[in-house]
């Protein structure tokens, strides 16, 4: 079982790192972090905070883009190119395939996150800004956010085209950061339809703002370890649920 999942996962990893999309996003991500230096004069004495905040934000954004763009094509591409016939003709169970694809993409994201983090710290050293290891907490939370976003991408990838999957996943990511507003909307709206709709979305969509602790780490504020652990657990449970639904859909698929 583990052997077969890791065969699918390592193939997914290899496919992604030989794909130009990933390389383009990585290069672009590092460039954006470097460009923070350009806007420094606008920051009026808060340079180091702006550069750090922008750097951490671009790492998150580009990793999410990788999850969305690479993840959206994950399952669909295998069906479209009919490589799926070869994989599923082997003694690979369908759930092992879905899990392998997910694990492979999570490995790609870990590698991307590490590469961009190294780039980020190098930029900070080069510009003489202090670079505390403390900021890594924020990047760890980003990885847990990716645990959720990738599961969303895999879910969509099992039943819609790559473009639709990318759009839906990115929309989920954006709205996932606004879920508190959704609850507010539910509380304030007089219309029962809007109330019900936003309440439904609030409960169904992932609450991604929990994973954003950039403000705290940039301002050297104290972190709440319990809240962080809770967020991490939330990510794992949420992703596991989505993967279960993905497996359910994928197992019923007729090729």
């Amino acid at each position, binding site marked *: 079982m583990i*052997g077969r999942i890791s065969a*699918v996962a390592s193939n997914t990893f290899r*496919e992604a790192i030989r794909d130009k999309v990933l390389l383009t996003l990585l290069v672009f991500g590092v460039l954006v972090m470097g460009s923070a230096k350009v806007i420094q004069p606008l920051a009026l004495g808060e340079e180091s905070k702006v550069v750090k905040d922008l750097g951490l934000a671009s790492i998150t954004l580009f990793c999410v883009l990788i999850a969305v763009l690479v993840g959206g094509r994950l399952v669909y591409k295998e069906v479209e*190119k*009919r490589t799926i016939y*070869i994989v599923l003709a*082997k*003694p*690979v169970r369908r759930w092992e395939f879905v899990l392998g694809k997910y694990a492979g993409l999570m490995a790609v994201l870990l590698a991307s996150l590490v590469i961009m983090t190294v780039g980020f710290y190098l930029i900070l050293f080069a510009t003489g800004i202090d670079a505390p290891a403390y900021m890594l907490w924020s990047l760890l939370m980003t990885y847990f956010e990716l645990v959720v976003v990738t599961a969303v991408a895999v879910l969509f990838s099992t039943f819609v085209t790559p473009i639709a999957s990318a759009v839906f996943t990115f929309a989920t990511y954006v709205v996932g950061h606004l879920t508190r507003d959704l609850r507010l909307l539910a509380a304030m709206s007089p219309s029962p339809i809007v109330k019900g709709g936003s309440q439904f979305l609030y409960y169904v969509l992932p609450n991604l703002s929990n994973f954003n602790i950039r403000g705290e780490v940039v301002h050297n504020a104290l972190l709440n370890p319990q809240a962080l652990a809770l967020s991490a657990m939330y990510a794992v449970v949420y992703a596991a649920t989505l993967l279960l639904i993905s497996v359910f859909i994928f197992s019923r698929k007729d*090729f």
Partner: protein
Amino acid sequence: MSSPVNEPVINTFRLTKVYRSGFRLKSVRALDSLDLQIEKGEIFGFLGPNGAGKTTLIKILMGLSKPTSGEASVFGESPRGARVKSRVGFLPESPYFYDYLTAAEFLKLSAGLSGMRGQEVAHSVRRLLKLVRMEHAANDQMRGFSRGMLQRMGIAQALINDPELVILDEPMGGLDPVGRKEFRDIIVALRERGKTVFFSTHILTDVEMICDRVGIVISGKMVDVGRLSEILTEEVESIEVAIAGVSGKFRKVLERVARHSIRSGDSLLLSVRNESDLDKVMAILREAGGDARIKSLVPQRKTLEDYFMAHVGGPASRDAAGRRNHDGY
């Protein structure tokens, strides 16, 4: 884990697959109450025109698709199970591979997916690259491979787990005459090792050379199963006679005896129904005397092609079924 001695390797009972497609969900019957038994150790050729339901049946046998009704079993079990798949090798029709992988990496992946580990993987990869004569390209990315090379990689991945049953969908597609010969040799060698081979094709010469039995499927129905010699009677359908040096008067008489005739200079090609008509031709030629002589005499037997042409209906119905076969999503 062995099946009872007499149990067929592949068994289908009234297997039916209906696809619904298009805006109005028009239904297309790709397989229609198909019964089939394949015994251990035979090479079975599954013949039919494009869109007859060959790929649909194979997808069901590989657990990629579910039947609408009826049953299919492989080694007496549901084809969807992983246990069955570990005993089967499969080559899809015009297979696509991961073109960013090298030939060796692809076979390593296939071995890993089959549950192999460590030394076993390296050993199988070497063995199969050699078998399909692709050792020279082991470290080349598959994106640069020709159709024939891809087909070789396809058979290599199908045989990676040394399967007891090999299912091949149009295995000869894209191969040149040398490649086809090698492929036939591989298939025959598999039988010699006691393996069962089931392959679909619409190329008749493949079947005539290597199959023990054939099944002919048309519009989702099995119209004939048996030895090729049973399906195609040995009976002579007509006799082709080539004659040279016949003059105008006798030529007209000869043409009247023949079913068809073609003139070319002073030569004449006649097609006569049977031996008594042939005797008439001989008699006329004796009477004509002079330069008139028979150049050749060829009895015409029924070919698979004739069989096909006689059984296959209009092209419209076949195309409708054929299109459905490739709608994956």
